[in-house]
């Protein structure tokens, strides 16, 4: 008989962590946002039950210590209890966001849950029909940062066991987006004898290597901001002797983030624009999942700017949102941006001796932070404001320049 194990591989659940970058959402959507990580968790549990998997791997960052709610812990426990009813085991580790020392609500979980207890590599053996079937290796973050290279500490303990699965919450060294926790290089993982490297920490789903060994970042199970676009979920994995791992991605998310860019050059009047947007969005947006839309409108002429200045565009988006929200799977335009290829030639203006020319030359490399201290260093406000990144500062400066030029030239005399 061939040996076989099946399991769910998920990571970065970030249960009950708030979404970022969304303002002014209606209450019902806020409620759905609040429930979304739990819904994803429930879907994960249901998937495990439906697929009759042997066990579930949760590779770190199940919640955020910083804003850890009791609800997150309770719901997690309930999920584990449900899995226990179906005799599905859970092997979990804590990551940088839910490191052990920072846990404010320690919970006792049912007996089917096995937690990697500390920063040393530990292994659990999964038994099926009284036979050792798989060894699962891993560690938990005790403190917030584990910066050592952990890969070298992994070693197979009993080679008689058919399958060896390593869990690792850490970052690929080339990855610059995240803090480099427990860093590793693909080649290091490739040189091990493990069958499967179950990774966590990076929210973007990535298959680093299909087979021998399989190396996967499953991504998070529910996107929480604009940059986490696309489907989110877990991997359903089947390992068999002498054959490649059988991998299938299972979406779990309830809310998706989507970037939409529309060229509205053909609209020269307000009503045209409204109809156009209505039509295009209805065509573009799928009816299968709820989505936050980040809309970029491009145009060859200046209608958009005008409408934006007069707040007409904002009203129009609100109206659009009302229509788009009124569906079982709603869509909500969370933000919009306009990009106009106006007749104003910056290149030409830049050369001019006139005021605008001087303005453009003058403000080319302005350091804007000092202008903004009044607000950003305000003793109350600075607590809640995200400090501006270089990129953001750049963008603000750019928008300010644009505003000035447009106002000085286009809207002259108003």
């Amino acid at each position, binding site marked *: 008989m061939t040996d076989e194990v099946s399991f769910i591989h998920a990571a970065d659940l970030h249960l009950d962590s708030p979404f970022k970058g969304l303002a002014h959402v209606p209450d019902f959507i806020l409620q759905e946002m*609040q429930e979304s990580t739990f819904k994803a968790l429930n879907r994960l549990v249901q998937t495990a039950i439906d697929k009759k998997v042997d066990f579930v791997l949760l590779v770190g960052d199940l919640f955020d210590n910083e804003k850890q709610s009791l609800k997150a812990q309770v719901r997690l426990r309930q999920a584990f209890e449900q899995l226990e009813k179906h005799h599905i085991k859970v092997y979990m580790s804590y990551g940088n966001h839910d490191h052990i020392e920072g846990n404010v609500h320690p919970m006792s979980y049912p007996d089917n849950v096995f937690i990697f207890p500390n920063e040393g590599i530990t292994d659990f053996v999964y038994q099926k029909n009284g036979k050792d079937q798989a060894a699962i290796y891993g560690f938990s973050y005790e403190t917030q940062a584990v910066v050592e290279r952990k890969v070298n500490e992994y070693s197979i303990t009993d080679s008689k066991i058919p399958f060896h699965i390593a869990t690792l919450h850490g970052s690929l060294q080339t990855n610059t987006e995240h803090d480099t926790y427990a860093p590793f290089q693909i080649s290091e993982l490739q040189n091990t004898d493990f069958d499967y490297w179950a990774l966590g920490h990076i929210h973007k789903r990535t298959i680093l290597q299909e087979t021998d060994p399989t190396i996967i970042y499953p991504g998070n199970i529910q996107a929480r901001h604009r940059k986490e676009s696309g489907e989110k979920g877990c991997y359903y994995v089947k390992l068999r002797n002498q054959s490649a791992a059988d991998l299938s991605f299972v979406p779990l998310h309830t809310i998706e983030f989507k970037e939409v860019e529309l060229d509205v050059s053909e609209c020269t009047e307000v009503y045209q624009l409204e109809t156009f947007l209505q039509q295009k969005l209805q065509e573009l947006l799928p009816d299968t999942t709820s989505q936050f839309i980040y809309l970029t409108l491009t145009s060859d002429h200046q209608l958009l700017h005008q409408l934006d200045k007069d707040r007409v565009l904002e009203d129009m988006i609100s109206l659009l949102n009302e229509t788009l929200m009124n569906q079982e799977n709603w869509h909500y335009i969370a933000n919009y941006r306009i990009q106009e290829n106006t007749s104003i030639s910056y290149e030409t203006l830049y050369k001019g001796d006139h005021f605008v020319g001087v303005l453009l030359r003058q403000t080319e490399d302005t350091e804007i932070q000092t202008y903004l201290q009044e607000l950003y260093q305000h003793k109350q406000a600075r607590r809640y404001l995200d400090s501006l990144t270089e990129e953001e500062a750049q963008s603000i400066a750019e928008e300010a320049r644009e505003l000035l030029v447009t106002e000085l030239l286009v809207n002259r005399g108003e």
Partner: protein
Amino acid sequence: MKLLRATIYGFGKWVDESIDFSGAPFLCIHGENESGKSTLQQFILFMLYGLPPKKRAFYQPKTSSKMGGVLTIWSPSIGEVTIERFDHVRNGAAICKTSNGQTYDEEWLIKLLNGMTLETYQSIFSFSAVDLDVMKQMKGSDLSEVLFGIGLTGSATIHQLEKRLDQELSGLFKPYGKKPALNEQLKVVDNLWKTSLEQKQKESTYRSKKEQQHALETEMNHLESQLTENKKKEIDVDRHLQALPMLQAYQQTRSQLKQYPETIAFPENGIERLNQSKETMLPLKSELDLLQDKQQEYKAKQNELRSELYEKEVYEKVQQLVNQKQELIDYQAEQTQLGEQIQQLDHQIEIELQDMDIGIEREYLEHIQLPFHLERTWNELKEEQKQLVSEKEQLQQEETTILKQKQYLENQKEEKESNLLEEDELQENKERIQQYEKEQYIKYTEQQRTPQKENWQEWKRKRKKTMQYGSSGAFILSIPNMWLGITMENQFFYVVAGLLILVAAGIAIWSYQSMKLADTFLSEYQLNDVEKSAPSISKAEKNKAVTLLDTQQQALQDVQLIDDQLKKLTIQHMQLEERTNSFQVKQNRFQDKLEETYRDFPFLKRIAITYWPSFYHSLKQLINSNRQLQQIKNMVAKLENWQQDFHQEITQFYAENSWNTNSQNLEELIAELEHLLEEARYTKGLVTQYTKWIEENVHRQRELTKQISIIEREIEDLFQIANVTTEEAFYERAKVFQVKQQLVDKENELRLQLASWYADLDENALQAKANTDALLLERKKELIEQTISQVETTREATRQTLSEVKADLQKMEETEDYSTTIHRFSVEQESLNRMAKEWAIRKTAKEMLTKTKHTYRDHYLDKIVAQTSTFFEAITNGFYQRVFAPLETKTFRVETQDGIQYDVEELSQGTMNQLYVALRLAIGIIMSKKHHVPFMIDDAFVHFDDRRTINVIGLLENISEKHNHQIILFTCKEAINHNINLGKQIRIGNSVRII
């Protein structure tokens, strides 16, 4: 750059017009209101910068389909360039042509304009009275700022923008404010943050509560085990108290048993067994008695039944009679059927007799005899009659025929005879012929021997022909007459045929003689050729005589023939009369036979002889039917006789047995007999049944006797075991045995009951327990109960606390307050960040604007102010000599030739406008060093007095001359026109006119 010419194909009210801008750098275009000055300006701008489709549509001429035109300009670097634009060509895009014939597009034009956009152009090089009016709307305190703003861009936009940005910024945020949007949002976020902290604090007590829960649960476990222990003790004491009477009873029973002997002989369950045997025997005995009684009863009943039956012979006779019943039924049925047949036949005969209607009675039918030959006799009579009739008819017909022929022949004869010639006539003709022939002969012999000879030969030939035709014709005619004679057996035809043959022969003979005569003449010719005399008789006469002779000859022959025929007919008639006589005799004989038949069968008179044979058959049929009817009637009579006999027999049988009956009917009698048989059969059946029962009864009696003896033996055995002989002694022994047994049972029962509590205790221990004092036990029980009550109270309190803690924990687990707050906080914080960004953009913009303003001022202001001073001085005719740029706190200031300084606010409206014009001109001149484009000024001098108007015109003329800068002034004021010296004037109105 200069404008040279404009050719307008169509633009607003301008259609197919040309304007020449060349000739002088300063150009004054004068026209009254609505003469198209502004449109012309728009046309120039359109040519240079284009217009969006909507605006182009606006300037579509009402009177022409064309829209567009050509503007010729002069560029210092390139020379002459024509710019061409049409609404419908390339969507209003420009086509530029240089003097060397090169063609360029819009892009090229934009480059040529050297970064000067429409907006910049309008800001710097074009101004009108409207711009001045905007200034008027400004508050006096803003004016210096406005003027400064204009100084920078050529319009008030910067100032307006700065002000708007300030408003927006303060609407968004104030460091110590409460109302601005950001401040309000900050409050919201702050509140949420505080709430979340409180909620988080609350949730953090979860851990300590959990620990408390754990401690309480341990405490609970301890108390529970204490309680269990005491409860167990209590149960022990309770049990001892409860078992005490039982323990004592057990000891007592044991001592009682010791008084009885070790064993007592008595059968197992002796009493029951004895009673059971007796009980079993009792019903058997009573059944035996019952059976014996029954046996007697059956026998008596059987005899009684037997006496009721008749002798066997009687039943046999009855059976025999009953057996004939079926015969009776069949006969009756047959009788009915025959009756129907009789009726049918009777009716049939009656009908047939009526149909015949020949007066035959029914009785006659019974007696009539039809001998076997009768049918043949009747047939012969019929045939004979038929033959007689036909014979009579034939005779009559023959007679008629003969008479008719006779009549015909006689008529014929009479006719022929009337045609015969007289004798002398006949003779005369003979002579004539002879005479003629003699003369002819001589003639021919003499003159024409040969022709004569030929004639004769001819004649001979004709004769021969006549002979052939005549004889053969007569012969042929005779053949049908012969045939008629044969077929009709008529002699007349024979005669005719014979005559015709004779005629044929006659013709043949006559012809032969004529030929012979001819031969004679021929020979004579040979002899007497030369003999010749004169003719006395003509040839015609001679021919006529010959013909007459021939006819006569013929008629005589005919008459002869008819006579022969008549003779024959007479003979035939006589023969016919003979035959008629013999027919009459035959007829009479037939009549006699007929009379004889009528005598035997008088009814035949009513029937034509022809139908007699068929009538014979009908009659025969009828007689047969009648006979059949008689036969059936006989059979019916036989059947009736049989029934009577049968009835007689039964009646006699009844009498013999001296039975009485009311039944007269044969069927009823038979039914009675059948019933008798049935009854006898039933009684016999009963007798047999009783016999069977008696047999069974006897058998059962034997069985019962056997069973009773077995039971008696069992009782005997029981007595033997108990070592007794009588039943009384057996019961005595039983009583003793029973008492001892009860004691043993009681001992066992108590031991068993005690074992469920004290299974592990031996007899000695039980003895000890039985000897314990009950009071002592009661006391012990009280003490234990007290302890239990105390522990229970403590446990209840602990349970209460635990459930409170648990409830708290559950509530905490269920509450989502903190979760909701942090999600809400996140959203509101984002709102705050977005607002902050909005603010940041505006703030940055404003700072940039301010900074640029400073830079710009630093760069251009000195030059502009100096230039403004010069121009302002020129316009005011030297009254004002200097203009001071505004400093941080001060506005524009001006200084008169007397050295007195004024703020802008202090100036009159006109002077303020003049300062504005001077400033705009100065900016334009400064700027024109880079952008050398023409000025376009539209009625900017409305508030100027004459003097200063002249000055301004002079200034413009000077500027244009000095800087070689094209200036185009649009005005409706005639006065301005008058003051132009160096410039070129163009009047527009009904037509363009150059002065």
